């Protein structure tokens, strides 16, 4: 009985987490970045590492390593109209799938997944493929994003400018 209850609990937790991640994906594709900011725990970090193996993000160079302040600045930049690349950014459609739940804390769940973003700009579609890890705080009624790590499969290669959020 215990195992079944645990399995049920895990299924429900994973389902809630997936719904949360898909809502985030929708906001990002719609460029509703203000609403995206509200999904975050202010203490959390948004990370796009370069080094495929690093977990010490603070001591290595990343594409992005945003605390709350930098996330706000980033969103401000992308919505201000003062950035030529952000004002004329690619349109994106993303698929997030291959979800697995790791970690056994009921309050902080860790979900690993895959993400394929197709970014279209000026007649060209570009693929950004990545492994994602979301850490989601479930301790209060509303889930909160406490860390998102986006590991692009080609992170050590030359990329084109990314005028949107991964």
């Amino acid at each position: 009985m215990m195992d079944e209850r645990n399995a049920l609990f895990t299924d429900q937790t994973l389902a809630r987490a997936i719904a949360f991640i898909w809502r985030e994906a929708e906001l990002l594709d719609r460029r509703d970045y203000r609403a995206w900011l509200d999904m975050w725990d202010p203490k959390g970090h948004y990370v796009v590492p370069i080094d495929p193996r690093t977990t010490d993000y603070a001591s290595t160079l990343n594409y992005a390593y945003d605390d709350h302040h930098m996330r706000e600045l980033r969103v401000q930049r992308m919505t201000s109209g003062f950035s030529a690349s952000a004002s004329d950014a690619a349109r994106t459609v993303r698929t997030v799938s291959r979800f697995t739940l790791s970690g056994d804390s009921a309050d902080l769940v860790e979900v690993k997944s895959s993400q394929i973003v197709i970014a279209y700009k000026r007649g060209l579609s570009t693929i950004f493929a990545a492994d994602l890890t979301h850490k989601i705080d479930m301790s209060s009624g509303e889930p909160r994003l406490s860390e998102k790590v986006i590991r692009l499969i080609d992170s050590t290669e030359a990329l084109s400018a990314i005028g949107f959020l991964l």
Partner: protein
Amino acid sequence: MSTPTYQTIDTSALARRAESDRIAPSLYYDPELFEAELERIFYKTWVWVAHDSELPKPGDFVTTTIGRQPVIVVRDKTGTVNVLQNRCRHRGATVCEEHKGNAKGFTCPYHSWSYALDGTLRALPYGDGYEGVCEKGDLPLKKLRVGVYQGLIFASFDESIEPLEDFLGGAKPWIDLFMKQGAGYPIKANGEHKFRFKGNWKIQLENTTDLYHFPVVHKSWMKSIDDETAAVITSFMTSDKAFCRSLGNGHSLAVLMPEFVDLDQDDGAPLPERFNELAAQLAEKHTPEEVRRIVRSLMGVGFNLNLFPNLALSMAFFRVLRPISAVETEIRHVALGMDGGPEEANRARLRMHEHFQGPLGFGSPDDAEAWERVQRGSYAGPDVPILVNRGLNRETTAPNGEKTAHSTDETGMREAYRQWRAMMEQA
């Protein structure tokens, strides 16, 4: 050196295509011209390939590309840095595909010819098929000429090229000043951002000493930093101490923060408030003088130094360009740190690099957007020149030939195109 194989351009027309104050738009997209640039510039002159700190131990290597030619930069057992063509002498396969690492030697994956760190061919399987045909000693990985200045490693395919220090010439004192941002520690390469844009390499070459674009293109970045820093960084617009200067051999300089040209000269101004917390941390292990020295160096030096054709020492980072085709270019922005220096200060430097540079930075994507717009727009009106004449009315020439004008002027670009023309016109 490689033998030129392309003679398809009309060199007599180059003077008309690249005049001293304007250039023909086709310089950005003519594929035949691009092939000639590889032959006459990138396969002839000194090209930057790595920094000493990337190869601290014997066997350490990085791979890179000069023009289209893949090379390995490797430190051998004697400590000498070799730059080797990344190409097996048998059938031409690359012998290394890692970006960086440590190796005892390089073995071709095709038929297992194996080479030492100095390029010597050590062994090949079933050697009886070569008895009396060829000698191993005649088939090392081809070596390039190597020159090192202040830890900057350059290579050239031309064995007879002038010494590196002669080529750097008037840029050398500025390289020395740039390296002072280690604040008493050696400079180390500390990660890099790489990105590509759809445009010609010379559009990026022009940009390094183009301060005119900064307040326009980087407005969104300026709005994301504090007013104090923004005021310091854009002081060049009005300061009479800021300037742009040609340094000869295609090199040029743009000074944007005159008070940070020589980091050993402390003007005693209060440290920026945004570094208060870091300064307090540093004060636990460093003297007040050391804290000032480190914090004043965090943003790098107050100038961009453009070294023809592929390297810039730009405030706090190295900018490296690689031409992919006439219409595509790869840019690397190498972050710098203090080797053995305080970790918290190195982390602060990384965060500043991330803030501006790279495909997700607040600065680089806007640069790339502007450059791609130049590329796209340049097809309109093939007979309408690209102007590089800003500041000709206020340019002065020193006895050593260096020309100086306002910081926002295009003196640096004119110097790059002067060198470009000289190299392209050579037989």
